[in-house]
Structures are given as structure tokens and as C-alpha cells.
């Protein structure tokens, strides 16, 4: 006891006074908020880059769907497809959407993770707007999920999807939109759900229906009414549809085939234009992000 006390007394000798680097934290402003958004975004990128295993494991599921399920089912489904159209080509856009699904949700899950391991506090006590934190997080998740999608885009040729620059750019843009909305959804959930297990269980439970109802694996026309309604409610539908249309317009197939396999989404006969389709997804993303911001503004 006595020796320990002696240890704890101030170190002997005069303190070495070194030149002080004076720092003054400025008042909050747009530039400061922007720096906060960028650093939170960058942290997502750094973590994605250092976690290569995650990128590889996230690739396994879409590869299974495309090549195993796609090849297996083409024997059956191929009969109803027009000649020259591969079943793998048909499901490629949907599986591409799937490839970003888990990465986007998992990126949002890191908020729950950060909360459990304390890092979230470091962010929450910083003198930055809660909006900057949530926006940075959503953009970060959107970016890495899109990267994940781009990795899968490399395999497009194996599904007979042409490497057309315009097509690739269109698909990347749509992936970015989808990733953003999915991350915003995840962040919104993460603002409320404090346990990691609960978050994963709940999002897994929601993600699979989202995927199956999006028309990723089947065409959206000629379905029973109940399924038609459900597919039109699923926000994923409004990205998978345009992505498939983009792919099919670059396949130089007869217009009749396009209309059969990649029809525009319709609401009771009315065709939803492309801008509205993508607009719905964007507005949902922004809406969920706003809910997340409001959640984070609350204090215990």
C-alpha cells in the first residue's frame, strides 16, 4: 500500500515545457459538418479495404444463386424462355441487387456493433450535427455496397451480359441508389435496436422477403393478384425492374421478348415510368435517413 502510494505521486523533476501547439475548435459550420461527413464515410472505406474476407464471403451467396441455382433451373425454366436467352442472364440483375443487399445492411449493423463496443460514444459526443453522422454513415454504406456490386459486375460476361460501358454505368448508378436506400433502412433500424443479435435476426428476416418479392428470380407479369400486390409494395422491385430493363435493352432481342421478360412495372395497367420508379427508391431512402437523424437527435 505504502509503495503504491509513492508510485502515484507526481513524477519528480521539473516538467519539460515543450512548445505548445495551440488548437481552437471552431464554431460549427457547414465546412465542419462536411468534414465530419467525409471522415465517417472514409472510415467505412478503410474498414472495407482492410476486411477483404468480408468482401469475399459476401460474394459467395450471389455466386451460388447465379451459377448453381441459375444453371440448375435453366433446364426447367429455359423451355419457356425464347431461344438465345439464358436463364442466368434473366436473373443476373436480381442477383446483382442481392450482392449489395447484405453489404449495405451489414454496414449499418456496424452502428449496433459500435454501440456495443463503445465507439459510437466517441462519435456522439463530438460537436457535429447528428445529421452529419447519419449522412456520412449512409453514404459510406452506399459506397462500399456499390463496390461489392462492382466486384459482382466483373462476372457479368459469364451470364452473357455484355460489358457495354453505358450499361455498366447505368447499373452502377442504380446500384448506388439501391445501396443508399438499403443502408438508410439499416441505419434507421440500428438507431432503435440496441442489441446486435436482435438487429441481425430482424434484418435477415426482412431481407429475404425483400429479395424474393422483388421479381429478382421471375418476371413480374402474369402473377396471381396477391403476389402482384406484394411485389409492387417491395421497394426493391423498383430497382430490380429498371436494372433488368437496362440489361435487356443492350441484348438486341426482339421487342416482344423484351416486353415479356423485362416489362415496365405496372400499377393496375398503368406503366410506372423509369424516373418515378427510381424516384420512389430515392425518396424512401431519404425518408428513412431522416427518421434515423431524428432518432439520433434524441438524448437519453
Amino acid at each position, binding site marked *: 500500500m505504502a509503495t503504491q502510494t509513492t508510485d502515484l*505521486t507526481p513524477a519528480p523533476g521539473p516538467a519539460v515545457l515543450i512548445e505548445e501547439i495551440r488548437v481552437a475548435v471552431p464554431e460549427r459550420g457547414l465546412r465542419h459538418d462536411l468534414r465530419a461527413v467525409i471522415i465517417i464515410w472514409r472510415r467505412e472505406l*478503410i474498414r472495407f479495404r482492410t476486411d477483404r474476407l468480408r468482401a469475399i464471403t459476401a460474394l459467395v451467396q450471389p455466386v451460388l444463386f447465379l451459377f448453381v441455382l441459375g444453371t440448375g433451373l435453366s433446364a426447367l425454366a429455359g423451355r419457356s424462355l425464347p431461344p438465345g436467352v439464358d436463364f442466368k442472364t434473366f436473373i443476373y440483375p436480381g442477383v446483382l441487387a442481392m450482392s449489395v443487399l447484405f453489404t449495405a445492411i451489414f454496414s449499418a449493423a456496424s452502428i449496433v456493433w459500435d454501440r456495443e463496443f*463503445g465507439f*459510437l460514444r466517441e462519435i456522439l*459526443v463530438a460537436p457535429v450535427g447528428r445529421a452529419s453522422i447519419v449522412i456520412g454513415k449512409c453514404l459510406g454504406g452506399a459506397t462500399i455496397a456499390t463496390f461489392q456490386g462492382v466486384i459482382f459486375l466483373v462476372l457479368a460476361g459469364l451470364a452473357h451480359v455484355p460489358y457495354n460501358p453505358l450499361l455498366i454505368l447505368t447499373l452502377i448508378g442504380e446500384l448506388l441508389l439501391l445501396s443508399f436506400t438499403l443502408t438508410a433502412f439499416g441505419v434507421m433500424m440500428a438507431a432503435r435496436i440496441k442489441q446486435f443479435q436482435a438487429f441481425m435476426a430482424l434484418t435477415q428476416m426482412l431481407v429475404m422477403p425483400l429479395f424474393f418479392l422483388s421479381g429478382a428470380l421471375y418476371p413480374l407479369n402474369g402473377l396471381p393478384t396477391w403476389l402482384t400486390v406484394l411485389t409492387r409494395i417491395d421497394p426493391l422491385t423498383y430497382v430490380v425492374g429498371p436494372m433488368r430493363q437496362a440489361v435487356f435493352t443492350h441484348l438486341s432481342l426482339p421487342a416482344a421478348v423484351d416486353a415479356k421478360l423485362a416489362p415496365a412495372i405496372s400499377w393496375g395497367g398503368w406503366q410506372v415510368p423509369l424516373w418515378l420508379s427510381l424516384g420512389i427508391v430515392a425518396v424512401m431512402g431519404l425518408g428513412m435517413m431522416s427518421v434515423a437523424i431524428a432518432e439520433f437527435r434524441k438524448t437519453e
Partner: protein
Amino acid sequence: MAANTGTQPGAAASGRVSSPLAAPGGNGQRATGNGRQPVISVSGLTKRYGEVEAVRGIDFEVARGETFGFLGPNGAGKTTTIKILCTLANATDGTAQVAGHDTATERDAVRRNIGLVFQDTTLDTYLTAEQNLRFHAELYGVPKPAVQPRMRQVMDMVGLWDRKDSLVSTFSGGMQRRLEIARGLLHAPHVLFLDEPTVGLDPQTRSSIWKYINDLKQREDITIFLTTHYMDEAENCDRIAIIDHGKIVAIDTPEALKASVGKDRVQIHTADDPAAIAALASTFGIEAAVREGAVTFSVSSGEQFVPRLFSEFSVPIRSVSVSRPSLDDVFMSYTGSTIRDAEASGTDAMRQMVQRFRGRR
């Protein structure tokens, strides 16, 4: 001077004889107020979590440059108070001002002025030490040209500059805590909050953490607010508030708190004990008796009495030991139990659990 009084084996607290010596001089400068604006001022602060009243109306002020300690068992309300002061929780009632700003209505202004080191680590262990600090600098809007030199300065201060490119997950617990202290200082806060800064660390690391904190006080114009349930750490504070069951039961300098409990015990070995007892009675008017083979008596501040004893006493003295009431005695006298007993009791364990649940935000 009195440090040379020499000690005998068995003088348990003799190690303390030298350190409190600084107190008489330092006391006046360090005491609260001095007409200066307090950096932290809290009045009527209350926090309820449902049925549990974690903080029950506390008041205190911390002066600029002071090291102020919150001493109490786990679950006494220390962490809750820190969370309110750091804008992480809203008070149910009462107000708190930090660096001149209200913690409820001027959150950002408070956040700009404070640095925090939490009880459990808040580093991103998947990033390097430098990446963690850079993240902090950007989040706090540290002016760009100052980021690099300031990072170097704070990392040098805790001796981690050569490890800046290592992943934090490869750091030991002590290194992580040091890095957190460096990070907490990066934006040059006016107030540094340390919530149990050395909990879970081995004694050697704890003492090195304290060395950094004491160095820091020499270097930067900073006020430190810390919570602890280690008595020996509380000794490092200029003033301590003892908190128990959500209330402050005592608040003063460690010296004054100990003095309030009782007098110091002085033991002297002399050539002629009966003569020494008689001389003590006639010279100083002190009653003494032989205990444990030494002439033993109580005075209110032993370290001031010892020099007088030497200059004015006629009987040759072979050795002197002064033992003071410890903070354990202080805690015991104000709360009726030792800090360890308080932590072991069931109701506090419950409260601690509640805090754990609430503490995740």
C-alpha cells in the same frame, strides 16, 4: 526538511509523510473559487431511470485548473453525472454548466470544450492509432494545418508516436487507455473528463497513467474531472466529492477530508519515554501514552507538528512516524461503510446492472 525525519519499520503510512508536505503551501492556491469563474457548476442535478434515482440532487463547482474527483462505489451515480456533464444524457431536474455553457441547451458548445476518456474503450480497434486520432481531429474540426503537429504532440506525450501505424487491436489495455487520453486531448479541451481512467489496469500501468495525467497538468491549461473508486487515486485530486447513493456526502481537499475525520497519529521513539510524555504535556499541552512500544499521541496536522517537535523538544528522539487517517476512514465515517462493502451490497449491484443497460448509448 521533515522528509528527513527518518522512519521506522512498522510505520505503515510513513510513505505519506513526504507527499502531504506540499499541501500547506499548495492548499491556498488550489482551493476553489479564488474569485475565478467556475469551469463546471452543477446545481440540484437529478437523474431518474424509471423507479431508480441514480442522482439525487447534487450541487458542486469546479474551479479552472482544478483536478476534481468523484469518489464512490460503482452504482453511486458517478457515471450518470459524467454522462449529463458530457451531454450524453439529459438531467431529470437541475442544471449543469460546463465551460460556461448549459449542458442541455448548448450541447455543441459544451462538446467543443470537453475531452472524454470513458470507462470502457471507445477506440476503433480495427483502425491504426493514427487513424483513430485523425478521425477525432476531423470530427472536432481541428484546423487542418494543426492536425499533424498536434497529433504528434499528444502521441509523444503518452509515448505512442512510434506505434502510430499499428492497429489498436494489437495494443495492451494500458496502451489503449493512453491512446484514449491522447485522443481526448487532441482538440485541446478546457475540461478533460476521465471516467474511471485506470479501472482494470495493473498497478504499474495505473501509476504510469497517473504520471501522464500529472504531466498534462503541467503542460496544458486544463481542468480535470474524474471519477474513481480507488482511494489512492483520489489522493491525486485537488478536491474530492464523496458520492454515495446518488448524493454528495462530503466535498473538500483530501487533506481537509482526512483532517475532518480525526487527528493524525504520531509515534516517537525516545531514549526516555516517561520524560518525553511529561515534556509533551508541558511544552505542547498534549496527552501522550506508550502504545506498541512508542510514545503515541494525536495532533490535528502531524506534518506541521513534526518540525516544531524537533525544534522545541528537549528529549532526544530516535525516530518519528506520522500516520494519517486514510480516505478509507473518511469514506467510512461519511457513509457508514467501506467502499468495498458498499459495492458488494445487493441494491448497488442492482443499480449497477440498471446502469449497464442504460449505459449503452
